[in-house]
């Protein structure tokens, strides 16, 4: 499809966009001016649109030799002061994991969109899956936190990409939009408001860039070229960035802080949505495209007078533990439908005492509402 010149850095009004295109527009609106990537199905349209839009708004776009180089370029661009992003799918996401750990440990703001396909490995390139929900949290070694969203529409691909940039800048952490093929390729009405809220990383001259007084603080972030003395290393480092690879206290403090700066702010980060839970006996806990099927199924059963409700996770990481725990006290059973073998269901089980039923489908197709309805009938 030919791309027409859009001429404005920030679109306003109503558009008909695929999820991938909407995410690119969200990135441009959020102030992203650097993209490095390697095309991969089903995320390529995002890269294609960024190539076009970054040229229009005076940003930088590079097609790299692979995904490892892509994420490394993104991290470098972020330290040079740019809001930077990349997008990929499972195989590329696997390649990026080492550098994602580097970004987390060096507290580098960056945004990664993973348009998930049916894995493992090369799997079914054009087919849907959501098998990277755990990898996004645990893919790199060591203890670290990230922020990850799960969009269910083109609108949320736009909104969550902006949120990912905002929170990434605020907390100096890699932030992820965990889309799936069905959402990336879904084309929907996207309404873009007149004004959007944009957050930028804090800057303060002469303040150490890798340590704070508070145990869960976020230090200001200088860029190369601003005149600050700046060392960035993936080895354990003190507040000034000097390598401290033998000091137990420095290591413990740093690892604690990069975790606590996210975990202690869960309430500000985490978002969930509830449907018909007031009197529900059984609930669906759902996310991503599958939540569209779930909502349809729940509404259908409600019409039959069945007491079923739904909680949707908009944020997957940090995990909405309190909300899920409350849900577990309210209902008898929770059904978790997923396009993987129960990745998020396992997490749910950590926080509830009621019965959790995992409903899985890994055939490269979306879970249709009829199937979810059928599963719900079995447990109602």
């Amino acid at each position: 499809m030919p791309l027409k010149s859009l001429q404005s850095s920030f679109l306003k009004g109503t558009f008909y966009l695929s999820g991938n295109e909407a995410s690119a527009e969200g990135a441009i609106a959020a102030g992203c001016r650097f993209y490095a990537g390697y095309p991969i199905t089903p995320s390529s349209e995002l890269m294609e649109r960024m190539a076009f839009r970054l040229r229009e708004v005076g940003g930088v776009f590079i097609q790299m030799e692979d995904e490892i180089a892509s994420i490394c370029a993104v991290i470098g661009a972020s330290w040079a002061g740019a809001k930077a992003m990349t997008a990929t799918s499972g195989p590329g996401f696997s390649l990026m994991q080492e550098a994602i750990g580097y970004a987390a440990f060096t507290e580098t703001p960056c945004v990664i969109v993973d348009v998930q396909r049916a894995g493992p490995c090369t799997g079914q390139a054009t087919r849907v899956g959501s098998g990277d929900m755990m990898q996004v949290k645990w893919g790199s070694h060591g203890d670290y936190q990230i922020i990850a969203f799960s969009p269910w529409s083109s609108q949320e691909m736009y909104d969550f990409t902006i949120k990912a940039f905002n929170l990434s800048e605020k907390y100096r952490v890699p932030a992820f939009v965990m889309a799936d093929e069905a959402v990336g390729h879904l084309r929907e009405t996207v309404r873009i408001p007149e004004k959007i809220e944009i957050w930028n990383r804090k800057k303060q001259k002469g303040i150490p860039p890798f340590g704070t007084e508070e145990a869960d603080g976020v230090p200001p972030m200088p860029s190369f070229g601003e005149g600050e003395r700046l060392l960035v290393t993936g080895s354990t480092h003190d507040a000034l960035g000097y390598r401290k690879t033998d000091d137990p206290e420095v290591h413990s403090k740093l690892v604690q802080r990069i975790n606590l700066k996210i975990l202690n702010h869960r309430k500000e980060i985490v978002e969930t949505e509830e449907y018909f839970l007031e009197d529900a006996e059984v609930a669906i806990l759902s996310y991503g495209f599958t939540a569209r099927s779930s909502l349809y199924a729940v509404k259908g059963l409600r019409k039959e007078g069945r007491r079923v409700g739904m909680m949707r996770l908009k944020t997957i990481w940090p995990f909405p533990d309190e909300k899920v725990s409350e849900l577990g006290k309210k209902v008898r059973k929770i059904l978790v439908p997923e396009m993987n073998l129960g990745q998020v269901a396992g997490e749910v089980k950590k926080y509830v005492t009621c019965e959790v039923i995992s409903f899985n489908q890994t055939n490269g197709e979306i879970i249709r509402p009829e199937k979810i309805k059928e599963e719900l009938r079995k447990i109602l």
Partner: protein
Amino acid sequence: MTQTQQIRVSGFGGQGVVLAGLLLGQAGAIDGKYVSGSNSYGAQARGSGCKSEIVLSESPVDFPHLIGVDILIAMSQGAYDLYHGEVREDSGLILYDQDLVVPKESLKVKQIGIPATHLAIKRLKNKQVANIVFLGALIEMTRIVSPKALQKAISMHVTERFRPLNLKAFKLGIDVGREIHG
């Protein structure tokens, strides 16, 4: 639930199935509707059976793929054979290419043959715009989106070089629709 229309455009990859769906969805968005669209992807969209699905609604769309089919456009026999059974009985509508599809007579669905490919070749010397002839006929008969919005959609998504041809095909489709309808 307010009124929702579920439309499937189907045929061979290369017949403009994906573009027809894109234009229909874009026109719906221009008309201020909530629209969800999806289509065949990858190798399917290039040669074999191909489909494009649109949900048009006055309220937010819960499930964005099709649950049933209100309107089916079948541009090939294969597509017709595969999808005619899913069209809603009584209220449903099938538009098929008159010269490429032999319809089943026993269906309890309104079926209308459109000489889309024939007219595209005869009147516009280009069979590639049969998809747009279908859209013209469909919109004239059903008004699921406004003709103005579809013209705007064509100007947004079709390159300048082929825009006049596509607009002519749309007008031709509207004339066909008018003849059949009234």
